[in-house]
């Protein structure tokens, strides 16, 4: 679109400003995390990395980080284990009620975190009352809740990837002598692999960063990193918390950059 000159400046101006707005909070956090002074003031008197060490020394953050990491990895693994087969069925099989199942599996994305979280929390308590098995504020409980969050992402991304493998290519493989199993292993999966990787990485990300749902399911000594951050922020705003937040930024950023090699990121939405 070729714009008249004044319009061009306005165009680039608005675009630039909006993108700056979007990125601003992240940059602010990263910047503050290396300030020397504990009380945030501008301009900063100097720069240091000590707050990162400080953050790691704080039990809440260290354990929060490890729990979030553990949770994300487990939820992703389980999510893949049950989501990929489902994606396969959705991509290939013909059956009545496919739209229904598809909506069902993608619905966790539509249910607000607070609603889902409160529901699961009360549900776990009810189970505890009935069977004596505690699930709220436990790791298994968190894992179960996170698997639900993760499934839509796996299903969506892997189904798209599988649909991109043309039927002809699979037929060609069989024509050349590959059994259906060999075809799946040597042709279908490798071609769909980018989608699988993206599914895994996005699952990791949404689990790691989840806040609203996990709120109800954490307990003393067992909290996730985002919740630890929120708790800290209710009382303090200092470079330490900025350092913790920056760590999360870098982890997610890394996951995204890796994803980008495998899948056109915008397609995930």
């Amino acid at each position, binding site marked *: *679109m070729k714009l008249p000159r004044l319009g061009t400046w306005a*165009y680039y101006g*608005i*675009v630039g400003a*909006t993108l700056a707005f*979007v*990125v*601003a*909070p992240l940059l*602010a956090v990263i910047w*503050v995390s290396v300030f020397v002074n504990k009380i*945030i003031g*501008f*301009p900063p008197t100097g720069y240091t990395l000590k707050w990162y060490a400080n953050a790691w020394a704080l039990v809440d953050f260290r354990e929060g980080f490890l729990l979030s990491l553990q949770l994300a990895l487990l939820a992703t693994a389980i999510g893949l*284990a*049950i989501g990929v*087969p*489902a994606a396969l*069925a959705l991509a*290939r*099989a013909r059956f009545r009620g496919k739209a229904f*199942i598809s909506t*069902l*599996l993608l*619905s966790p994305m*539509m249910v*607000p975190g*607070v*609603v*889902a979280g*409160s*529901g699961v929390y*009360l*549900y776990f308590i009810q189970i505890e009352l009935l069977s004596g098995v505690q699930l709220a504020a436990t790791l298994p409980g968190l894992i*179960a*809740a996170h*698997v*639900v969050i993760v*499934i839509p992402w796996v299903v969506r991304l892997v189904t798209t990837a599988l649909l991109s493998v043309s039927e002809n290519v699979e037929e060609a493989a069989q024509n050349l002598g590959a059994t*259906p*199993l060999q075809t799946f292993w040597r042709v*279908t999966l490798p071609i769909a692999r980018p989608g699988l990787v993206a599914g895994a990485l996005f699952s990791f*990300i949404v689990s790691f*960063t989840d*806040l*609203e749902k996990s*709120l*109800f399911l954490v307990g003393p000594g067992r909290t996730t990193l*985002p919740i630890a*951050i*929120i708790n800290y*922020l209710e009382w303090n*705003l200092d470079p330490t*918390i*900025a350092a913790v937040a920056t760590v*999360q930024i870098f982890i*997610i*950023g890394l996951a*995204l950059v890796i994803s*980008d090699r495998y899948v056109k990121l915008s397609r995930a939405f």
Partner: protein
Amino acid sequence: MTQAAHASLLRPRGGTTGTLLAPATIVAVVLLVAPLFLLLRYSLNRFDPGSLMIEALTLENYVKFFTDPFYRDVLGRTIHIGVVSTAVCVVLGFLPAYFIARTQSVKMKSLLIIAVILPLLMGNAVRVAGWMVLMGDSGVINAAVMKLGLRSEPYRLLYTDLAVLIGTISVQLPFMIITLQSVIESIHPSLEEAALGMGANHWQVFSRVLLPLSMPGVVVGTVLCFIMGMNAYATPVLIGGPTFHMMAPKVYEQITKANNWPFGAAMAIVLMVTTLVLTMLSSWLMARMSGHGSVEAKA
């Protein structure tokens, strides 16, 4: 027949399909659908400060919610924030989305997309921290303003309606941009060129070609942005301050702090239903306005 058994993997049929779908479906039903029904059931119970929850089938929680001006206000404010932030996102999101979609250089486009998606997936916790750093009394914005001598005292930016809006928009905007970008990319540039060639000015190209064609994307983006806005937790709590009440924090409060499960559950249901109704309404409205009969939002 062995052929059929093996072929099942590539073209699942009958029993195999069931096996493939079962685990995920069971998880969804057991851990999503069932809890929601439980919430619904609890919302009909009675709250008693002594024994916490009494089995009942009463609508008193809902009545309490809707007859109490305080809570009506909470819902109203939540809807207000949801609607305004979403509307701003739609307006602000289009140009950046267009810019990214039409960027020629692959590297640049990748970079821009990551720049937009990164804030999106950062997590509300980090984002809120960032805004607090920016908008606090001794935050970046105030420091800059005072340094430049524009004011001698800091603006009270935090704990205002505006601050919450800004915080919420910053969550939704990347999402809107990415969704729109995807849709605009699928509109071939030659359509715009054709319109320009026929004498349309830029506004007309936008309103008569780009907007109608990208409407499905606009609808999807709007729906999801709205859902996010209605259900914000971290932003209202940390940036809104103690006097700023929205639904999500209140639900949390009632269930975990006041232990009033029936009421909390009722609020959760009200939140979900309100979001759903408004979402469907806006989808329908937008579809009508753009001249489409019905628009299906892709989940």
